[in-house]
C-alpha cells in the first residue's frame, strides 16, 4: 500500500476521490496527498481510530494542521510498541515510495480514549471534520458491535457499511443505521481491494466540507451507495 500504488490503483478503478485512514496514525497521509495531486486524484486525509471500547471511528479533516494535531492527541493516548514479526512493519513512505522510516507504535492497539472523547476532539478542529462510525455491520470493532447501539451523545456524520454487506439488509437489522446517512467503501488494506466498493458523490470539489453537504443533500450535493 505505498503512496504510488494506492493512487495508481484508485485511478485504474475509475475512482476520483479516496480517503486515507491508517489505524491510529496519519503519518503516510501527506505523501499520498502529494502523489494524488501529481496524478489527478483527490485525497482526503484522515485516520481510523480504535477507541478504548475497541470501536473503530473514521475521522477526516480538510486542514492538514488539524489532522496532525489530531494525530498527536491519538499518539499521546496510545500505548505499546509494535511487534513487527506478528503485526508487520509499519512503513512511513514519501510520495515517490521512498521509505523514510518506520512507526514503532502499537497501531493495531486501542487508545485509552472513549468514543466520545475521540469525536469531541475531531469536532474541536479549526476546519471541517468528518466523523464516521466505521463498518457498523461488523460484529467486532464496530460501535454497534461493541456497545450494542450508538449512544445519543455521539453525533456522527455518517455510518459506514462494510464492503461485503447488503446495505438494505443492514438498515433493517440495525435500527440505529436509519438515523444517520450511510456510506460504504472498500476499507482496502491491500491494493487489490481498492475500488471494490465505493460511494458516489456529487460535489463541487473533493473536500470534507463538500462531503458533509452531500451527506445531508444540501445545496445540490448528493451521496449515493
Amino acid at each position, binding site marked *: 500500500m505505498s503512496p504510488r500504488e494506492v493512487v495508481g490503483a484508485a485511478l485504474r478503478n475509475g475512482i476520483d476521490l479516496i480517503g486515507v485512514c491508517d489505524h491510529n496514525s496519519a503519518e503516510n497521509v501527506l505523501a499520498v496527498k502529494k502523489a494524488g495531486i501529481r496524478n489527478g486524484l483527490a485525497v482526503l486525509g484522515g485516520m481510523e481510530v*480504535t477507541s*478504548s471500547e*475497541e470501536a473503530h471511528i473514521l475521522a477526516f479533516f480538510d486542514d492538514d494542521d488539524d489532522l496532525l494535531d489530531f494525530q498527536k492527541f491519538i499518539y499521546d493516548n496510545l*500505548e*505499546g510498541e509494535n*511487534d513487527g514479526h*506478528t*503485526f508487520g512493519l509499519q512503513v512511513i513512505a514519501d510520495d515517490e515510495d521512498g521509505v523514510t522510516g518506520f512507526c514503532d507504535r*502499537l497501531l*493495531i*492497539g*486501542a487508545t485509552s480514549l472513549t468514543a466520545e472523547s475521540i469525536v469531541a476532539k475531531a469536532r474541536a478542529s479549526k476546519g471541517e471534520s468528518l466523523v464516521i462510525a466505521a463498518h457498523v455491520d461488523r*460484529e*467486532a470493532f464496530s460501535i454497534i458491535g461493541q456497545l450494542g447501539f450508538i449512544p445519543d451523545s455521539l453525533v456522527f456524520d455518517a455510518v459506514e457499511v462494510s464492503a461485503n454487506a447488503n446495505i438494505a439488509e443492514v438498515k433493517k437489522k440495525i435500527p440505529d443505521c436509519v438515523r444517520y446517512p450511510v456510506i460504504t467503501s472498500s476499507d482496502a488494506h491491500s491494493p487489490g481491494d481498492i475500488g471494490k466498493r465505493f460511494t458516489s458523490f456529487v460535489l463541487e470539489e473533493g473536500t470534507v466540507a463538500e462531503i458533509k453537504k452531500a451527506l445531508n443533500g444540501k445545496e445540490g450535493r448528493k451521496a449515493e451507495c
Partner: protein
Amino acid sequence: MKLGDLVKEFGLTVKTGAGHLDNEVTGGYVSDLLSDVLAHAEDGNLWVTLHIHHNIVAVAAHTGLAGIVLIQGRVPDQDTITTAEEQGIPIMVSDLPAFELVGRLYKAGIRGAEAL
C-alpha cells in the same frame, strides 16, 4: 496441565492446532477486548473469548498463549482457521457460556493472575 488434558476433561472440539495439544497451560485469561489481552494475558495462558475473527490469532501468537477456547459453540471464521493452522495456534470450542466455562476451569485447577 496440558491442553490435551483440558480437551478431554471438558469435551472441547479442537478446530485448529491439533498437533500442539501438548502445550502447557500456565493459567487462564478471559476477555473480549483484544487490547486487554495484549496488555495483560501471560505467556502460556489459555484465553477464553467469543471472538471468531482472525485477529485473535495474532493476539495469541504475540502473547505466546497456549491456546484459545471459543464459548457458546461459536465457529471460527475460515480465515481464522487458516491463519491459526499456519501459526500453530490451537483453537478449541466449548458449548458453555464464558462464566460457566471459567468456573469449571477454575475448579479443575486453572488459575488467573492474582492482581495486575
